[in-house]
């Protein structure tokens, strides 16, 4: 006898599939209303796929084709960043971008881009060679001119996704991880039944923010209604280098090449923690789980970046990674409601991170058709700020540590992270449960030693806080545990 079938399914006003930056932003935006909401992700943490492997840029919006959804969402999203990041205590620096023209042909392209920027409502300025090199002395002397976009910025994408999800949970959203949606079927009463690897739910509205897999979900949901759909996500891989934070003055703006057919081209940018990011490549791949880096592609990435910044110190390279852009075959964002109660957010490739906050507002507008929206008077847009010891003045730090001794215990010396900060990252709503989860929230493992010194301590703290054995603590998801078994204990012991 299957008892679960006899009990009514847990039901929600809205189920959001995918807890990347898009799903998390949607969950937080919808939490402003009196709604019961469920945010689902098949991974062990929020924001582990495309949201964790991108350029970490808040684009100004000079580049997308005027009138496109990409242009609209980019520009609107950009404007929402400063206030949202203040509310959520997320690292954001509006450092501006420089798009370099190298050679006469590219100078002409800058004029086109400036015209496009004007149509998109984005302030830009064309800088002379001398002015560009005054602002960025380490750029190639071959630069002829540059397009300066003062409203471009950099954000910590891990922190943004976590903060959006954490704030959503604080405001009543249910977050369930390690739970994969296997079927979405419309019921006769207009609701959807969402079946997952762990159970089933009923919902009045389904928001499909499933990233690389949003096409499968959308097509299947429509097929259940007897409708055929041909959404198709074509993953396009971007490979990157990460450099250590060796000199905050080395490069101060995000440096772009002029965009090409393939995308925005190669960039060199500081991150919010003073590291430097070089990349991305743009190659289609036929597998949605192909995150492998390759020598050939990275060599090309480095060569392209050296055309912008010839003196990139390759000794400072500490990591390579690859991310997959969820490109819909038509090349445009898809934000639609093809059937009652179904909202698709597909093909949210670059500038998806920037657009995330605006896309969430679009979902608010669309979901009104399915669920009545009533303001939630208890909604609190603020996240409790994090204690960031590394940025405190010495006396403030001394005073804080005197009150909170575990913040005196330094776990990661590369990034200056204390045990207290790690424990906080685990205990918060939407807290870390994996070594990578801790790394993304408070940075141990991001430094030069790549976790060589701090990882055993992070494993120890996670095990203690979660009440698990150290050998049960994964790097990222179940199946990625770091330790095998205690020495001296065997199966037949």
């Amino acid at each position, binding site marked *: 006898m299957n008892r679960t079938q006899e009990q009514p399914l847990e039901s929600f006003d809205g189920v959001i599939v995918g807890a990347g930056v898009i799903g998390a932003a949607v969950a937080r935006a919808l939490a402003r209303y009196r709604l019961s909401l469920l945010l689902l992700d098949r991974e062990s943490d929020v924001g582990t796929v495309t949201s964790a492997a991108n350029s970490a840029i808040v684009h100004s919006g000079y580049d997308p084709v005027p009138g496109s959804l990409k242009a609209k969402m980019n520009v609107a999203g950009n404007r929402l960043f400063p206030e949202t990041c203040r509310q959520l205590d997320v690292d954001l620096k509006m450092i501006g971008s420089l798009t370099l023209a190298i050679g006469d042909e590219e100078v002409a392209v800058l004029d086109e881009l400036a015209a496009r920027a004007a149509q998109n409502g984005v302030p830009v300025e064309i800088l002379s060679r001398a002015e560009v090199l005054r602002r960025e002395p380490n750029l190639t002397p071959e630069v002829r001119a540059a397009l300066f976009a003062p409203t471009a910025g950099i954000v910590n994408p891990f922190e943004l996704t976590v903060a959006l999800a954490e704030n959503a949970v604080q405001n009543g959203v249910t977050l369930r991880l390690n739970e994969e949606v296997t079927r979405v079927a419309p019921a006769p009463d207009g609701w959807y039944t969402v079946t997952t690897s762990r159970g089933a739910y009923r919902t009045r509205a389904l928001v499909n923010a499933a990233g690389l897999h949003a096409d499968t979900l959308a097509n299947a949901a429509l097929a259940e209604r007897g409708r055929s759909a041909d959404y198709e996500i074509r993953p396009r891989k971007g490979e990157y280098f990460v450099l250590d934070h060796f000199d905050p003055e080395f490069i101060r703006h995000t440096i772009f090449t002029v965009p090409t057919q393939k995308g925005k081209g190669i960039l060199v940018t500081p991150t919010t923690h003073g590291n430097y990011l070089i990349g991305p490549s743009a190659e289609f791949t036929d597998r949605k789980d192909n995150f*492998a880096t390759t020598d050939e592609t990275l060599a090309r990435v480095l060569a392209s970046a050296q055309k912008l910044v010839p003196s990139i110190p390759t000794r400072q390279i*500490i*990591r390579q990674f690859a991310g997959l852009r969820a490109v819909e075959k038509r090349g445009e964002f898809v934000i639609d409601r093809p059937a009652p109660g179904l909202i698709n957010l597909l093909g949210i490739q670059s500038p998806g991170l920037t657009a995330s906050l605006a896309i969430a507002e679009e979902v608010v507008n669309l979901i009104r058709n399915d669920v009545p929206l009533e303001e939630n008077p208890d909604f609190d847009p603020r996240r409790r700020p994090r204690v960031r010891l590394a940025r405190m003045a*010495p006396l403030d730090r001394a005073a804080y540590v005197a009150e909170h001794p575990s913040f005196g215990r330094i776990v990661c010396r590369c990034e200056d992270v204390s045990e207290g900060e790690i424990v906080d990252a685990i205990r918060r709503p939407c807290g870390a449960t994996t070594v990578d989860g801790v790394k993304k929230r408070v940075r141990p493992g991001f430094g030069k030693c790549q976790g060589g010194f701090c990882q*055993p301590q992070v494993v120890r703290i996670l095990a203690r806080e979660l009440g698990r054995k150290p050998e049960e603590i994964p790097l990222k998801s179940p199946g990625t545990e770091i330790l*095998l078994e*205690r020495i001296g204990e065997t199966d037949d012991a």
Partner: protein
Amino acid sequence: MTPDLLKTETFDLVVIGAGSAGLAAASAAADAGVERILILEKEDFPGGILLQCVHNGFGLHRYEQELTGPEYAERALSELRRKRIDLRCGAMVLSITPDKEVRYSGEKYGYRAARAKSVVCATGADERTRGAIRIPGDRPAGVMTAGLAQHYMNLDGYTVGRRVFILGSGDIGLIMARRVTLEGGKVLGVAELMPYSNGLARNIAQCLNDFDIPLYLSHTVREIRGKKRLEQIVLSQVDENFAFVPGTDKTFDVDTLLLSVGLIPSNRLLTELGVRLHPKTGGPVVDETLQTSIPGIFSCGNSLHVHDLADFVSMEGENAGRCAALYIQEKLGAESGDSPVVRTEPGAGIGYLLPSVLHAERAEEFLLKFRVRKPYRDVALLLKLNGRLMKKIKKPYLLPAEMENLRLKKEELPEPSGTLTLEVADE
């Protein structure tokens, strides 16, 4: 800033790191009459990396006895305990200010500062990582540095792999090949990019040959495969320019890849302070007193340059401690702008040569340390001052894996200034 609020204490000497180098430095400084000495150690116990080196082979030079790492550390600590030295563990140094205020943090101590007349940096080395050597492919669990695996096995008591491959024939990698095997793991091989091993000969014999573990010279890992846990590596032969040789790919089904691909002196504190760094070693530029470009700041052990034996690290630490004592006692001899100096430069065949600067008027004897770039047999070392040969030393063999020492008496230097070069030549 009001120093009191930061709980600033005053010492004659602050030693950063309680590993082989730091313990020896503090001990030697105390013997030389320095009174107020503080050692700051980031871990909860003193001993540094020695604590995870449960194999033997330590102490042959210093104690004429074969000890394990923890035993060797205990020897050093028992000497230290007889002296008046303040040892604080669980205290991570975060910065050194130009006026030698050492700021540190610990659960027991809070965030506070120690002002010193002199500072000895003995902060050890970091292991080179996968990212630093850019191995392409997937990013699964099961890829880690050999030293991290050693920490997990010997300090925490956990196995890290069942079917293991090791990249790099550095000593830690060789030691871990044996350690994994003894705990029931299967080591399928050790690969070395160079055409010769980077580990000590005794470790090749005792850790690989005794267990029939193959060593693949001129090979490297060209791809890592695995979605969650490591599943497979692709090994490939390289030519003399380190380019992959087509058709030599071999795959190994392994769940763990340990990396023993070199150590890099750990010098974030000194870098941030603006100490001049040596382009070859990754450590600071020092003179014969192991003093860095900032007077009163000394460096020793693996944070100065990577050593093969802990005994030599201790000896260098003692030297740093003695010199710091002389500095504190104002007997070191201040370096004035016009005092003559000899600058050292590695010549043909020499990877690096330390110290970088010699003050001929300040010492009776100099200890030069160097490594060769590749293995040599039956060669001569030529020591030249300003291009003129001053000394020729025959060597039956020279190996990159073994740091060489060369003593030079003051009277052997024909002039007190100029450039001293060391090169390898045919006998």
